[in-house]
């Protein structure tokens, strides 16, 4: 099949950028979108041009590295898939497709399609963990977790931190990411001791980098793991609860 790619080229963080059009002829429809870029880069290198920089790693939708705004949608038109899982057969033969990097103040462009998502690390450092002694694994069922709770926590833990929620959000908010990080801990017994300290820490850190959630619901549709905005409601609710809880008596900070 044939595709025309309009790819955002930008030499460096502060360099000006522009769209460059590449005609891809006779590519296999069984290729993934990243493989299309491999082919493109091979051709560019063959012509002695600079290949397109883009992030990728696992190529099976679990690492969250790949990040492209494809035809105005984060990770392209397919729902519930990352860019690496988008097959060309899902696209229309002969189409012209614009490919852009994520755009957000918290995700500065490094080069071409690669953006720096270290802001997500800052958020996780602020509260996306539990304080627990590490060491050998504990015995199974030592802490009882109902199957339903484990499933709900797993739905949130499916977040691969790709940043599609921020990219898709008209406000550039990272609420879905933060809500996922918050929920997968707070739905489990291990997350309870720091629950209210965590929610405040996460919300405040998130807002240093990203916009505010106005409930467009765009993130939920863009998320390759289809994480629900129900988790955002949980985050909002617990943030207000954290204001009212007597945290001194729950043994939590502040």
């Amino acid at each position, binding site marked *: 099949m044939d595709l025309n790619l309009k790819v955002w080229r930008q030499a460096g963080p502060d360099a000006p950028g522009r769209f460059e059009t590449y005609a891809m002829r006779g590519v296999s429809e069984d290729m993934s979108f990243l493989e299309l870029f491999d082919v493109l880069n091979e051709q560019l290198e063959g012509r002695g041009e600079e290949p397109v920089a883009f992030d990728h790693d696992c190529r099976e939708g679990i690492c969250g590295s790949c990040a492209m705004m494809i035809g105005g949608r984060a990770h392209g038109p397919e729902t519930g898939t990352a860019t690496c899982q988008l097959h060309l057969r899902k696209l229309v033969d002969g189409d012209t497709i614009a490919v852009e990097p994520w755009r957000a103040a918290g995700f500065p462009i490094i080069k071409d399609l690669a953006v720096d998502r270290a802001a997500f690390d800052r958020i996780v450092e602020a509260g996306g963990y539990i304080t627990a002694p590490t060491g050998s694994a504990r015995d199974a069922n030592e802490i009882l977790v109902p199957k339903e709770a484990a499933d709900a926590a797993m739905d949130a833990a499916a977040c691969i931190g790709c940043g599609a929620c921020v990219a898709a959000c008209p406000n550039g908010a990272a609420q879905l990411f933060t809500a996922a990080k918050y929920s997968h801990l707070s739905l489990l017994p291990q997350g309870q001791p720091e629950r209210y300290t965590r929610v405040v820490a996460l919300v405040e850190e998130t807002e240093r980098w990203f*916009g505010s959630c106005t409930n467009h619901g765009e993130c939920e549709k863009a998320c390759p793991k289809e994480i629900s905005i129900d988790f955002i409601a949980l985050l909002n609710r617990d943030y207000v609860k954290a204001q009212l809880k007597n945290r001194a008596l729950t043994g939590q900070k502040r």
Partner: protein
Amino acid sequence: MTHTQEVSTADHRGGADDADRLARYTGPPIPVRRPRHPVLRFWSTAVGKKWVMALSGLALLGFVLAHMVGNLKLYLGESHFNEYAEWLRDLGEPALPRTVLLWGMRLGLIAAFGLHIVAAAQLTRINHKARPVQYQSHRDYVAANFASRTMRWTGVIVALFVLFHLADLTWGNANPDFVPGDPYDNVIASFQRVPVAIIYIVANLALAFHIFHGAWSMFQSLGWNNPRWNAVRRYFAATFAAVIAIGNISMPLLVVTGVVTK
């Protein structure tokens, strides 16, 4: 729990080699000073402001509904309508002196409007800063609808309309036929002017769109989310918006077309 301030990110730009610097371009977190007082601290976050927007929005929804119900008395005739207007002033008597409760409600309403608008303005600024460079290709929205994406504009239209509405029917400066204490005739005289009727109709359409998103969004911001009720939230918002639109638009429409007269 660790504070971000304790996390050393100082070596991100300086000292690191080129690859490292490129990889961690984000740099250290911007130190944000948050106020100490719990109320101000809550307000300092966007989640806090959205909570305030939701609650003030809820209050405004209540007002809009009550205002419409009261004004539909227009169809029962002059004496009913004027009686209702008087009753608003008498409300709370004899426990409270005349008009005190009305003024209390007005002050509450002004506070709700004020908070709603200030929070909206501040959140808009935050969101503009969060994406300084827009997407350069066409965005293909999936979930964000016309109502949710025009909240800013419908909000501004409604706010300007409220000022006009007060000047028209409360203070009277936008209504040459205004007679203090004669609300029924004032309303009819005002709506009989075609441009004014159009202003009312357009503003109420904007209000309906605003409510269509706001009355749903409010539940999310307050964290009122339960799969058992989630579908109802959408119906609630849609129905509320439709009722307000039909009720409020019917009045200028029926007056300007001559169905309802003095």
